[in-house]
């Protein structure tokens, strides 16, 4: 640096100082203004973080509930990503930082134990809990329960049925082995014969495995966090491998998810599909020719004669422990999940309701002709492992079972046991 330059700089100093002072003053004023803004009276804003609901049913409920609160609160929806994993990451990051900007959060049914143990949730008040237990089906209520306490309010549920082609299979199979045999027969006759299942290495694979283990009469994890697995797990894994190595396996089974499975069914290459009820309206719109022969039945049995226990999906609404308005938030959640709003979510948005009474509404029966099957499966439900380490446990299951065609019956149960045990002690690098 040279001398003259320095002199010049010194010369310009006062002006700079003035500018800095002006900037500071502006910043100070902004802070003051912001403070004024937040202290002014008016409805409290309740931020609802939820998965994207394209039909507008959630938005309609939020608007109506806000209006009905007579100026007490105003629900502002923030849509998260469509992927459940991404939703969890977005929420968890905010909650781990004690962020008070979330009031109501839509939680996938698997997150209850994790969020409750991490102290991110306010437990549901006893009076509200009693009302929910009397109004909702058993399965959805159980997903929101952790250590005998209700931590969230169910808003919608989900369960997988068997969908089949009536023109190819006049009588739907009732067991997995029968379905695989039917597929082989169809293949021998040169007809469409694939069984669409979620075999990709993602949550859908855990859902499948869990449904199989529960339907075989077993459990992955007991409520005391002990790993169970055992003979039921072996049977489950064996049938999964049997399917994956049979003629019924779609060549893309190892990367198959719900959406592509539905597309394959609608394109006519599949005879069977295990999938959620969204496939009904999707196939209706996608290919009326296939839809004309589309039938539905209960999820196939693993043990002949014993009703299956199918993994429950869906969402529960929790109240953040860091919310500044928990009481208003619980009022809002009660409104958002009331029967009127749930039926709109079901009929307009295709979300399976949790309130038992909706299953007898004529409008719902029309949109969901298979409603009694869903209601039944939500009562004889299967739960995915309830543990704070669910994110690790499910990854361990997915990694061990994928690809399903390579499952080794001799080692699969012990590998699962080791991996899940590591997950439960925060020692699993996955």
């Amino acid at each position, binding site marked *: 640096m040279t001398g003259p330059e320095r002199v010049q700089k010194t010369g310009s100093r006062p002006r700079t100082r003035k500018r800095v002072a002006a900037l500071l003053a502006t910043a100070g004023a902004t802070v003051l203004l912001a403070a004024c803004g937040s202290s002014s009276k008016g409805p409290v804003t309740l931020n609802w973080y939820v998965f994207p609901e394209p039909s507008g049913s959630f938005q309609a409920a939020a608007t109506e509930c806000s209006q009905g609160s007579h100026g007490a609160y105003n629900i502002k929806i923030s849509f998260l990503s469509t992927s459940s*994993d991404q939703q*969890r*990451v977005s929420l*968890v*990051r905010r909650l*781990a930082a004690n962020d008070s900007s979330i009031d109501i959060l839509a939680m996938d049914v698997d997150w209850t134990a*994790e969020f409750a*143990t*991490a*102290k991110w949730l306010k437990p549901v008040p006893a009076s509200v809990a009693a009302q929910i237990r009397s109004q909702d089906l058993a399965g959805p209520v159980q997903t929101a329960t952790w250590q005998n306490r209700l931590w969230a309010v169910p808003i919608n549920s989900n369960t997988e049925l068997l969908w089949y082609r009536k023109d190819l299979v006049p009588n739907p199979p009732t067991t997995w082995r029968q379905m695989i045999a039917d597929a082989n027969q169809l293949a021998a006759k040169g007809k469409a014969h694939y069984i669409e299942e979620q075999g990709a290495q993602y949550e859908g694979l855990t859902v499948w495995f869990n449904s199989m283990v529960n339907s075989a009469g077993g459990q992955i994890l007991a409520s005391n966090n002990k790993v169970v697995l055992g003979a039921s797990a072996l049977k489950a894994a064996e049938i999964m491998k049997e399917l994956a190595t049979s003629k019924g396996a779609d060549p893309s089974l190892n*990367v198959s998810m719900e959406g592509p499975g539905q597309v394959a069914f609608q394109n006519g290459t599949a005879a069977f599909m295990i999938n959620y009820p969204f496939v009904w309206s999707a196939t209706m719109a996608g290919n009326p020719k296939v839809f004309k022969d589309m039938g539905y039945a209960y999820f196939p049995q693993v043990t002949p004669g014993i009703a299956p226990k199918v993994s429950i999906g869906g969402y529960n609404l929790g109240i953040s422990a860091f919310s500044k308005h928990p009481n208003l938030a619980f009022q809002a959640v009660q409104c958002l999940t009331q029967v009127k709003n749930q039926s709109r979510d079901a009929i307009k948005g295709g979300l399976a309701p949790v309130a038992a009474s909706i299953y007898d509404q004529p409008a719902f029966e029309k949109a969901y002709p298979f409603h009694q099957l869903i209601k039944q499966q939500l009562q004889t439900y299967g739960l995915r492992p309830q543990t*704070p*380490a669910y*994110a*690790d446990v499910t990854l361990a299951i997915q990694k061990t079972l994928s690809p399903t065609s390579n499952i080794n019956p001799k080692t699969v149960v012990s590998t699962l046991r080791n991996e899940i045990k*590591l997950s439960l*002690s*925060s*020692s*699993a*690098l*996955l």
Partner: protein
Amino acid sequence: MSAVTAPPSAPSAQTTSRRKHLSDRARAERRLAYWLVAPAAIVMVAVTAYPIIDAVALSLQRADLRFPNATKFIGLSNYGHVLTAPVWWQDVFHTVILTVISVSIQLVLGMCLALVMHRIIFRRGLVRAIALVPYAIVAVVAAESWQLAFSLQSGWIPKLLGLSGDPLSHTFGTYVAIIFNQGAQGTESISILNYNTLLDRLNLGLGSAVSVLLFLLVALIAIVFIVGLGAGRAPSTEAA
């Protein structure tokens, strides 16, 4: 500095005074320099040294945000779990492959580019600036745009190559994609493992153990680079 205060020879009075005058000025400038550097140094320590120490401390505990009541000191167990996990060695392997291939390609292409830059005849500044623009793109933005480019539904790369399957569903395809896109900044696969353990699954203890191991790995590479290849001895004669 001791050489200045105690000169070995006895020079003339004039030179001594001039030197003393110079060294005073030099000392003042040096002091000023320290003052000027201090804020940056303090910030550097705060944002690098503190997290490193914290990571080492966390890596010796069961620290999992999902089990807030189960936090306890567990010694080196986390390191044991990381080093015995197949996924760690798998990712180390991926990282080594990516590094070797991408560094080789970068070296050759970079040298060619440098030679071309050197011989530019017109608009030298503009052309050089254009060549440097990609460096200014945030890695995440670049990664996202390349992901779009490679996606089966909307990407232009599968269309261009006439691919029917997703190129990213095969290990080899993924290598090619990573190497050509971002030049794999050294430790990506291990970093992603680290990121998922720490931020997706909130396992701070185990994730910190991965961080510390990653840090040691990078330190090792740096030492090999400086000592083995003589990078430390490279003269810096670039004039301002």
